[in-house]
């Protein structure tokens, strides 16, 4: 678990009704990669973060945030 980083991938996926497999196929990674990023077990590269942002059409900061920044 990454103690510093939080992500909102699950929330974004649920809002858009996209499965982990669909997201993985769309950005060109395995479902396991999405699953581990979502649960905080694996911190992805900037490339994957940017691909996710492009897929969800939101800024990267809307997907990933530092835990210190949260109110």
């Amino acid at each position: 678990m990454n103690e510093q980083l939080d992500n909102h991938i699950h929330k974004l996926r649920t809002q858009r009704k996209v499965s982990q497999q669909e997201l993985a196929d769309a950005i060109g990674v395995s479902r396991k990669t999405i699953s581990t990023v979502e649960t905080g077990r694996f911190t992805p590269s900037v490339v994957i973060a940017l691909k996710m942002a492009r897929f969800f059409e939101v800024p990267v900061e809307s997907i990933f945030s530092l835990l210190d920044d949260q109110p």
Partner: protein
Amino acid sequence: MLLKRKQKMTSKAISLYEREQQYLKRNAVCSLIMAAVLVVICLDKWFNVAFANWLYAATILAALVCMLVTIRDCFGSVKAAFWYGEFQDEFANHLHQRGCKSAFLTISVALGATFGATSGDKLVSGQGISAALGAVLLIAYALPVLKGLRAENE
């Protein structure tokens, strides 16, 4: 719009990522079975276990089957990715590196311990020590990889 983007971004080589993880998993299982073969060799060398021959035959057979299945199902590019440490899938790469790091650190400690333990006048079988160190190396690589690849539901 989202659907179009989804279709556009879908890579035709997408199954490669799953294949890489499958290869990594089978390779780790193979490593564990090979480690079992080496442990049997150690038992035979050091303790002269009576049933070592049967154990040896069984573990060798299991290792051969596992290796054949791994070789049959994997393409050249995936095998090359394993040896060069350049998997297309980022998580597979991460796991492979974690396995290698764990193997390096564990074997360093094990080599130090072996050096310390055999520095006296004791006579020990070099084959047995090599087998033991090989087993430690293989287990140290396989366990973090299998732990990282354990099943996880959506």
